[in-house]
């Protein structure tokens, strides 16, 4: 029996059927859990629906309401603010960690440690930080107070709440993002750095002239993924602030959840979900185009 053959592969009959069998589970999952709910969500966005009685067609009513709903626009603004802080800080920090991991150390223990917060569930991370940052009782504020500063209402003040939640999630996700970028760095051939060194380039210059251009496709994919994830922030908000104070952290997903499962307005919640889908799709296409994620400068 030969393991490799130089002759061109012969297409055997029945391959298609076999392929269909292999694809079927994933296809079934895609149809049942993705395509059908999406289509149904779009349909429900044109209805008034409380889950227990049949949906009633209302045309564009939900969309008209959404456009005129100040809370919707407010929550969209809050969400964008969150995404900007979360992605900005997270990407910069992850990139720095990944480069340091690649250029300075081979220790897999260090790489492991970087990933540790990611092993914790979002809800647990949120609760732990909530307790640390509690204005009156949290150890974080006890330290701030012991150092002679005023206590900071991290999660209870409308100015602080969104940056705090954004940074809690940076803390949890930065290791994972760094690891993704690190994998991208590993793909950059070492000769590039050696050649740059021979030419007398500094680490700083190598970073901007070698690392960044060659990392671009990976970074682009990481950005697209993290931005989508960031727009969907929900659990940290649910356990730390529940949308408060005074709607200051009422991010879009939380507003959608409250409208659907708290107020039984599934039609309106679906309309807002469709809006979020449109926004995310537009951002993804834009990012993909701007960062030329499909092309590599390598080779």
């Amino acid at each position: 029996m030969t393991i490799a053959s130089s002759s061109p592969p012969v297409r055997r009959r029945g391959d298609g059927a076999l392929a269909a069998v292999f694809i079927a589970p994933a296809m079934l999952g895609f149809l049942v859990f993705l395509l059908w709910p999406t289509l149904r969500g779009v349909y429900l966005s044109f209805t008034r629906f409380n889950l227990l009685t049949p949906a009633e067609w209302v045309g564009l009513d939900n969309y008209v309401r959404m456009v005129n709903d100040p809370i919707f626009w407010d929550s969209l603004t809050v969400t964008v603010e969150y995404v900007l802080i979360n992605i900005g800080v997270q990407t910069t920090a992850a990139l720095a960690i990944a480069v340091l991991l690649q250029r300075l150390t081979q220790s897999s223990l260090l790489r492991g440690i970087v990933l540790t917060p990611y092993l914790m569930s979002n809800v647990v991370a949120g609760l732990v930080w909530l307790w640390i940052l509690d204005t009156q009782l949290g150890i974080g504020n006890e330290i701030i107070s012991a150092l002679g500063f005023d206590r900071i209402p991290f999660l209870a003040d409308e100015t602080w709440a969104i940056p705090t939640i954004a940074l809690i999630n940076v803390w949890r996700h930065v290791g994972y993002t760094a690891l993704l970028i690190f994998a991208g760095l590993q793909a950059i051939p070492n000769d590039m750095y050696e050649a740059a060194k021979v030419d007398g380039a500094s680490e700083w210059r190598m970073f901007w002239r070698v690392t960044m251009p060659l990392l671009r496709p990976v970074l682009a994919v990481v950005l697209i993924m993290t931005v989508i994830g960031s727009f969907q922030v929900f659990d940290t908000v649910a356990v730390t602030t529940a949308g408060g104070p005074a709607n200051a952290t009422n991010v879009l997903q939380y507003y959608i959840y409250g409208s659907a499962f708290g107020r039984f307005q599934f039609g309106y919640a679906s309309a807002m979900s469709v809006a979020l889908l449109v926004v995310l799709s537009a951002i993804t296409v834009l990012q993909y185009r701007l960062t030329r994620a499909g092309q590599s400068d390598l080779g």
Partner: protein
Amino acid sequence: MRLRTLSALAGAVTLSLVTGCAQGDGTGASANTVTYWLWDANQLPAYQACAKGFEKENPGLDVKITQLGWSDYWTKLTAGFIAGTQPDVFTDHIQKFGQFADLNVLEPLDDLGIEESDYQPGLAANWIGQDGHRYGAPKDWDTVALFYNEKLAKDAGLTAAELNGLSWNPKDGGTFERAIAHLTVDNLGRRGDEPGFDKNNVKVYGLASNGGGYADGQTQWSPFTGSAGWSYTDKARWGTKYQYDSETFQSVVQWYFGLAEKGYMVPFADYNVQSNQANTQIAAGKAAVTFDGAWMISTYDGFKGMDIGSAVTPAGPTGRRATMMNGLADSITKASENKAGARKWVAYLASDRCQSVVGRYGVVFPATPAGTEAAVAAYEKKGIDVSAFTEPVADTEDFRTFSYPITNYAADVTALMQPAMEDIYGNGAPVSGLDKTNDQINLVLDQ
């Protein structure tokens, strides 16, 4: 061969686990079983005892009780209504009643023979829907009183009699404001009513905080708005207009949140619904007194190394004291597969036979007078004086009791009022902004 046997075995185990899980879910649809859900873990043993009595009286019928924490409870119940896995009977809350009635998921209980006069006043009437049918059988009740740290009160020179005799008004706050000002101590040991008091560096606040109070202010501002004579809606039940635009309401709210401005009440920035509610502030010694409900009696009693007393709410401009009196009920789900059994169980739950048993556990005040008496005796046995909670029900001349607002769209009302009240408390927004919120609420109710 061995591998095949192993995998067959594994398959069999998995299958049995799956089917086992399916059998073990909360529904247990069977003619012999009645499924019952409640959220208060403290009450579970009492109702288990009740179920035993019921099963003895009704051979062949089993009650299966499931207890779930407050927030999971409603999520799971909602999911259960949708998926058809709802319990036969569940503990119902008046705030959810309107929504459930609207969704048509409750079974009418008109034929259970629930008589108003068998229960504490008002409890049975609240569970009649707009269609005139009854949807809940009275289970228990609670009122709100003033819990206080006995040592801090003594240090401030306040006696139990003084704390039980407080009065307030929205102009100068009356003896109530003077008391909490005196209970407040700043970092340098100066009391709130002493010269040089530093409101920005307070060590112990006079009054603890339970947040903005959503749309009802049950343990926040409602003892004040109630004793000022204000009501949530235009009618006692199923009102069609909310009255947050009333001058009385707004002046009381302004005075109440103003207590935080003056440094006498825990500021909004220090409160957190998860990590730092009023009972935590009291337990941590960060506040001296707080309004809280009867369901918290055991919690406050359990604080280690701290004696907590309770006093009646302060008398208001109307000359009367006021507290919300809320009552839970048991409801049967419309989709229940064992309605006959469920009816029997609910009738039993609403009877003196069950409520007296529950009362003896001293964890809640049952709705029937005999059940209440049993509970008072049980609390007494534990060394807890609960008269601050029972007096408002017994003495209707000096006390005004009122219910949660019972209207449609309660969840929408809360969603609109919560940020509005937090804005006033946390950001110092003007109370006149409530006019607009009230208009929005009434617009929702007009739908």
